[in-house]
């Protein structure tokens, strides 16, 4: 019985040991994946943008938070483009052009998203109208 328990425990530990979920490449990260830019102002701009960009392979994380190789390659793009003098907004636009709005965590007003911004404003106007009528009626 104790041998059985030991075997079961061994199996349990084996199952809990970390196993890589998918094969990974053997190349080192891109030059600017984890290296900061020399100019602290540019690095701050790059970091702020990285926190607002979605990792394409691990979609619930920003590229600043993710260790996926693709997130590293995206950070390299962000840093090297900003180092080359591009503005953060033009780097964001470059990615949105390729992956759509989904790649950016900052909501944008577009043909699909304008109701999100319009509905609260419309509701506020309706509420104000009702309040004015009720309060006006009381007087």
């Amino acid at each position: 019985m104790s041998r059985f328990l030991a075997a079961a425990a061994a199996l349990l530990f084996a199952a809990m040991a970390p196993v890589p979920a998918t094969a990974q490449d053997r190349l080192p990260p891109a030059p600017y994946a984890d290296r900061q830019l020399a100019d602290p102002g540019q690095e701050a701009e790059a970091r702020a943008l990285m926190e607002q960009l979605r990792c394409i392979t691990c979609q619930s994380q920003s590229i600043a938070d993710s260790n996926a190789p693709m997130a590293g390659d995206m950070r390299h793009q962000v840093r090297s483009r900003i180092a080359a003098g591009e503005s953060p907004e033009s780097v964001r636009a470059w990615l949105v052009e390729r992956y759509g709005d989904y790649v950016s965590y900052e909501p944008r007003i577009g043909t699909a998203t304008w109701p999100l911004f319009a509905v609260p404003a419309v509701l506020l106007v309706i509420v104000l109208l009702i309040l004015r009528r009720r309060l006006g009626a009381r007087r």
Partner: protein
Amino acid sequence: MIRLRWSLWLVVALALAIFVLFFVQLSRPKEEFVRSALIGQPLPAFALEPAAESRPGLSSADLADGQPRLLNVFASWCVPCAAEAPQLAALEQQGAQIVAVAIRDRPEDVAAFLEAFGNPFTRIGADPISEVQLALGSSGVPETFVIDGQGIIRYQHIGDIADRDVPVLLEQLREAGG
């Protein structure tokens, strides 16, 4: 009194409409992949070194010579890329010209992969930092794009190519040629 009832029904209808909207939108299956937004757009300009000795490298100019092609994005370390090898071979046999980009790969690993699973590619470019992959709006490996003779991206297939995808890709390739 009549007016009040009418407006109450309106509230009920509105609540019901919102409920239906939420139900429909929330029961839609989650789109697992991010699709490229570049379909119908020209390929971004790039020029990649050869990924293996047996084939030349790949540039965007190679894909704008009048001949429609499949552009396969793969990697030797990617398991489904090996799984789609028979389908790529079938596509090549049925007349498709296939070029490839190898993502984050070493020449010796690409060579071993081609040795083991076959080489249907006429050109293979090396993309060690996923630069061209990002420029294409590709979200992983494997992916297969249909590029027409003018270098316009016509179609994107995400994931490995199954048997049922072979005729679809051939049809897309035929449309890109016409």
